[in-house]
């Protein structure tokens, strides 16, 4: 059974100007111990997907579809059960660790709070566990008496990871966990996440706009554009031989050093990602697509089979498959 199974998720934000569809039918599955990367640019709806999974969206937001966490439907959960499932079923490592912590509480107490509130241990026992957690994320246990301001950016992010692990969840969602960090610290945090994921057999949903980070840590990738998944499949093939032109452009934005194709030749797309309130008709990518043809503005592509365990929402995919069976 999948740890997380999302079926046809649709999310519309309520605004004064009318509803804005941010997620327009997303389906994804994460198996136990699997790391799925969700990539896309700002406004593509990737953070909305995260918030919908744990029902963290503002009141008045319309959500439809199905979110099953360990087989249980999150969208219809009663508040008490929902509170229990957050942290124990699935937890989140948010971006910007510096803003996610209480500045006037010792980090040990903040970590213990989650454990105690979920009834997993008494206060004393919880502090012992916090010490172990800190050790697990590569920090000396004595640091539990520190306040957040005494920690560096990388250390804060380690504490956030410890917090996400505090109640032994089956799924950890990492939402841009390294965006605000320096290159060297980013590599340290990624290595740590990778190590913990393997040791604990965690399922992970990893979200970022940086495709080169995802391909390094994920088993599978899903690429989002304008509220939909446009390509998915095993990470290395998706990154190296993209089936969707958008994936190709995104991958080219993170060129490998030494690759002569990109030397003194930056590559990018014209135009800008669409605003959720004005998504183009047909294939939402067609106005920026270098390969667009006459059918693209009218036909909405579905996710077509594009090789082994791969799917892509581009009208060219079935045509290519037809030519080379």
């Amino acid at each position, binding site marked *: 059974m999948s740890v997380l199974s999302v079926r046809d998720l649709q999310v519309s934000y309520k605004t004064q100007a009318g509803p804005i569809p941010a997620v327009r039918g997303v389906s994804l599955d994460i198996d136990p111990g699997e790391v799925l990367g969700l990539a896309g640019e700002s406004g593509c709806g990737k953070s909305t997907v995260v918030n919908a999974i744990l029902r963290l969206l503002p009141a008045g937001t319309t959500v439809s579809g199905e979110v099953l966490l360990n087989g249980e439907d999150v969208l219809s959960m009663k508040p008490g059960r929902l509170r229990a499932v957050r942290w124990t079923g699935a937890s989140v490592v948010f971006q910007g660790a510096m803003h996610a912590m209480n500045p006037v509480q010792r980090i040990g107490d903040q970590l213990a709070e989650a454990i105690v509130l979920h009834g997993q241990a008494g206060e004393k026992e919880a502090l012992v566990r916090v010490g172990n957690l800190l050790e697990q994320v590569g920090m000396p246990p004595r640091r539990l008496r520190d306040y957040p301001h005494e920690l560096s950016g990388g250390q804060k992010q380690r504490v956030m990871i410890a917090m996400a692990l505090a109640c032994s969840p089956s799924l950890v969602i990492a939402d841009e966990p390294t965006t605000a960090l320096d290159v060297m610290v980013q590599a340290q945090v990624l290595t740590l996440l990778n190590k913990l994921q393997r040791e604990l057999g965690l399922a992970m949903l990893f979200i970022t706009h940086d495709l080169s980070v995802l391909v390094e840590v994920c088993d599978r990738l899903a690429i989002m554009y304008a509220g939909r998944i446009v390509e998915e499949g095993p990470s290395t093939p998706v990154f190296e031989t993209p089936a969707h032109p958008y994936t190709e452009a995104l991958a080219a934005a993170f060129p490998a050093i030494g690759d002569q194709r990109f030397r003194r030749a930056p590559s*990018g797309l014209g135009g800008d990602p669409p605003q959720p309130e004005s998504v183009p008709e047909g294939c939402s990518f067609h106005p920026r697509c270098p390969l667009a043809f006459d059918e693209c503005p009218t036909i909405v592509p579905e996710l077509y089979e594009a090789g082994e365990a791969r799917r892509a929402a581009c009208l060219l995919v079935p045509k290519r498959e037809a030519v080379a069976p």
Partner: protein
Amino acid sequence: MTETAPGDAPVLEVRGLHVSFEGRVGLGAGMAGKKATRSRAVDGVDLTLLRGEVLALAGESGCGKTTLARTIMGLERPKQGEIRFEGEKLGTSAKILREYRRRVQIVFQDPTAALNPRQTIYESVAEGLRIHGITNQDGLTEEKLVARALARSGLRPPERFFLVYPHELSGGQRQRVVIAGALVLEPEIIVADEPVSSLDASVRGEILKLLLGLRDDFGIAMLVVTHDLGLAWTIADRVAVMYLGRIVEIGPAEDVLTKPLHPYTKALLEVVPEAGGLSRPILSGEAPDPTHIPEGCRFHPRCPEIVSSAAANAGVEARCRGEDLALIELRPGHFAACHLAAARRDDVVPSTST
């Protein structure tokens, strides 16, 4: 494309530049004799920028790359050393600095923060002209000059953007406005501080193409400050790597990025994410502290060559720990400040393993 041949004349030279910031001490601690800690943000930099060249300045946060860029802009006053612009030493009088700042323009990281939200695009771009009292140039009026700068920055037709406010534009368009604001003054140098890191991935390439185009069309030299070595690979002619206030390696981009000499450059290249990665060595510890610069080679406390005993085996470890060193030319045009790399070069058998 032919090998870009930047005219060999340097447009900007930096010699022995030191910039430091004094820390503060509380009144009580000061009376008790405590001294303020001095942060040596730029600690002896020599740098030459050639006409029409794109030079990438890379390093971790806190390495002093932004301070160096700001000093080159004339926004920080150096403690020591000099900046020479077109062969002449830069003075400190307000009049000279004002003219200098017209010819050296900056493009900031975040265009949303760089633009006044209550000014139209026209006002934002024209502001520089007004500050410098330029009402007519090349026989063009202010309006024509603004239109030309917008068009050169890829905002066409320019008139359509005159009365638009920044919030009506996308991130990429805003960055083009910022570039137009720099371009309208016809600078010789553009300093770009992380010019694309706040932009969406698919938009970055177009902005980088624009910057490269400005170099090709107008011969503008560019100093691109970035932490992203992949970006350096796509646009730079030369790359300089900075560590704790000093340039530790500099040379042609292809050499520095594919055949690095300094262990710090190698470490930076190791952490560039790539498919199938994560098995690589990573420097431990946080970015270094410019208030406590180590003795000897400033990188030695984190240097993997010391940990692996490679420095000891080559007989240079004592010098790494005790002897500060300057950049040494180890390959044509390729300099590094590393005792080990220098020792290997001096070997009778030239080492190819580096």
